[in-house]
């Protein structure tokens, strides 16, 4: 997907925000110790936030026997392609409810993209390589993003009351299921984890490959 499209989308959002609001809504995710937690998926839910435009397609690559990215957030209905950048076979599968599938992936063979049309978490595994774990967060709202290095995610949205959902595979169940609601006109929300994180799987850095 060309980068200009992103910028264009962003520009539209900003314009929308500026046109109606004075300030954007910023969610700060902190871990149990109060340190900023980067990479968490933050989704704002509101009936108005149904996507107007078709969702952007996404890619879940397999590089060096790891899913890349480790966590992928897409909008409901998005097409995700599963290329194989390794020179070996992978057998990607998921038994998660939103999307059960399996793909036998060969080098240089590009299967058709899969449509993730149900919101939820799709855990990805590779039947050949047990250590390979990846996640696709299928957001039902158009407003979702991942926290930056400061653990912040900012949304230019109308001043409404939003349900804020924060997710990351290292979160414990309680934190995963916890949502918070903002009041109208609230510009900041701090989401602090109440439980310790699961340890990191392998050496996998939860890097922001394309942001």
């Amino acid at each position, binding site marked *: 997907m060309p980068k200009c499209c992103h910028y264009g989308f962003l520009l539209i959002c900003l314009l929308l925000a500026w046109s109606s609001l004075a300030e954007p809504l910023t969610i700060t995710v902190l871990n149990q110790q109060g340190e900023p937690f980067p990479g968490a998926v933050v989704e704002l839910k509101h009936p108005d936030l149904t996507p107007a435009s078709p969702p952007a397609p996404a890619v879940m690559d397999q590089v060096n026997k790891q899913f890349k990215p480790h966590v992928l957030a897409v909008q409901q209905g998005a097409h995700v392609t599963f290329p194989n950048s390794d020179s070996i076979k992978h057998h990607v599968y998921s*038994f*998660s409810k939103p999307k*059960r599938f399996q793909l036998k992936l060969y080098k240089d063979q590009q299967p058709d993209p899969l449509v993730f049309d149900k919101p939820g978490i799709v855990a*990805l*595994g590779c039947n050949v390589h*047990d250590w390979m*774990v990846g996640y696709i967060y299928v957001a039902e709202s158009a407003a979702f993003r991942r926290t930056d290095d400061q653990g912040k995610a900012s949304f230019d949205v109308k001043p409404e009351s939003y349900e804020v959902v924060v997710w990351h595979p290292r979160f414990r169940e309680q934190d995963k299921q916890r949502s918070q609601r903002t009041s109208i006109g609230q510009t900041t929300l701090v989401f602090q984890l109440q439980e310790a994180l699961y340890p990191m799987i392998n050496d996998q850095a939860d890097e922001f490959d394309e942001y």
Partner: protein
Amino acid sequence: MNIKRASLQQKILLFFSLILVTITVLVSSTTLQSAYQHSNSQLSQSFDTARQVFLYKLQNDGNVLSGSLRSAAKDFNTKQLIASGKEDPESLAAVLVNQQRRSNADFSMVFDGEGQVIYSSLTETELTPEAFNSDAIRLSVIDGDVYLIKSTEVKFLEQQPQVDAWLLMGINLQKLVDESVQQLTGYEVSVISGDNYVFGTTNRETAELANFSLLPNATMIEVDINQQAQIAYRFFADEKEYTDVSFVFSIASESAFLNFFQLAFQLSVELIIAIAGAVLLSLYLSNNITKPLRVLAGVAKRIQQGDYHSPIPDFDAAEVNNLSKTFEGMQDSIQAREAEINQLAYYDTLTGLPNRNSFIKQLKHKIETGNGESFAVLMLDLDRFKEVNDTIGHNFGDQLLKLIGRRIESLKLADAFYARVGGDEFAILLNDVNERDLISMVKQYTHLFDLPFEVEGIHLDVDASFGLAVYPEHADSAYGIMQCADIALYKCKETHHNYIRYNSEFNTLSIQRLNLMSELRLAIEQDQLRLFYQPKLCLKTDEVVSVECLVRWVHPEHGFINPDEFIPLAEQSGAIRQLTHWVIRTALKQQQQWQQQDINLQFAVNISAVDLVDLSLPAYVSEQLTLHHVDNRYLTLEVTESALMSDPDAAIKALDMLQRMGIKLSIDDFGTGYSSMAYLKQMPVSELKIDKAFVLDLANSDDDEKIVKSTVDLAHNLGLSVVAEGVEDEASLEILKRYDVEFAQGYFIARPMNAEDFFDWMSQTNYRKIANA
């Protein structure tokens, strides 16, 4: 010997047996006990080991199941089917049947991540999968069967922390606990659930095993199973919170303790053999010890019965043989001593002649064997032999007796048998006598004393008296004939004949003499004695100053008995002490009475030589004086001169004691004894009584007058006062006055009188009465 007393043999036997039985019982009980403990601890250990092996096996079975479950849980297809289990249960069931078969399990279940059952081969269960995901042995009872159950997590993504599903399978324990387990552990294994028997390697009735549930955990215990003693051991495979399933190992006691029972049996047999052997051995030993003792006891009995001549056997054992030798020595010395005793008993050591016993024995023998044949006993006694002894000495007397014995022996007449039967008394048995020969024979014996005896160069004329008695004329027993001869002898002494033949007239007198001795004590007790009082007159003042107390015996049969007759008898029999005591007691009582009647007199009491050595006399005198309130100085004790001089040293001691008590002492019958002047001056006496022999005829005899005068001089020179006895006429009294004799006593003044008469006499007499003290 006391028959009830246990024999030595029995004691030895008992002792050995007791020791042996004690030792064996101790040894066997400790051995058996330690063997039992060893067996027990071995068994206990074996149970522990078997439990560990058993549990290891179950653990292992569980591990196998777990492994199988885990690999199934990782199977992609299975995961896929579990993930779509709700939409496609048939496919899931099919794959699980397959997995269950692979795992050799008997049922299987699948749960989703929330613990909801997705699939179950059982119709109804309430299992929660987490509990069985453990390394421990997890057992559960389902529909009456016990299952070993394992579960495992299913993760769709292996790296994911969250659990997506559970896989659970169970194996029926009957497949795992079978014959092979019994062989492996060596015990029958029963599986118990709660109180219920589930199954076992050996089929059992449920009811019989109900009590298994009461067994303590991991402790072996003896129980009855099927009427058989068994050792049982119960344990749990799992913590009780998970299950109530337990296991029981059991084994028949006799198999469990096989070695122990064998050992006990062997020991018992050995002990019985040992005890039997010991009993036999101790029997043999005790017999060895006691047999010689029995033999020696027999010997001792023989010796007791007087057989000193049998040989005494030898024995092997040194100790016993020593005892035997000692017996021999004892037998020899008894023999020797008997001979010596015989010699002493039947022979006189001085003259070598047979003694009195021997003579009597001879007489008895003669009477028993002589068929009434007549024989005579001639008894002879030396005249004044005591004087010979006293004057020339006992040694001299002994020599004389030897010579006499020899002289009698030299005269071998008519088979005569001689014996020395007393101090100076010899007896001669004359056999086969007729009257005529007898007289001549007796005369020959009397003539033996015609010639003097020569002892140590001194020629001594000795006279002897002879008494003759004839058997059976005078008596028909040995003692009787001896007594008759004795009586004749005394008669002879009295009458100064050469010899006297016994006459039955003598007898009454002699019997009386003998009786008197025994009757005297009775007389004292029965108050047959009386005291007579003869006054003494003070010649200077004509006062009656004292009385001599004279004892009189009025015998109920014999009438009046002369003191000269019974006092020597009393001295011989020892009754003199009681007599003297009686006299003192009676005299003082009388004195007390008279003092109350205003008659104050000195009382003189005669005491004998025997009383002098009676140490209790002073105490008795003192006690009686006090009792009757009589002052000591009112009592005079008179002792004859001969009594004093027979043992002067003892007499001095005794008199000293009495004198210190303040009692006046007087020498009686002075002039008839043989007073040593040396002793006389030492005697603590204050008075001499001149013997009446010198006073009776004083008026007519110049000799007596001289004797009296010199005696009075002697007495006065020794500081003693003088009493003259036997004053029978006034002339004599005048002479006595002239010689300054202090006191006089005699018929001229007054006869001895009884108390009443004396009292009357005192009131009538012209003599002055002593002034009241």
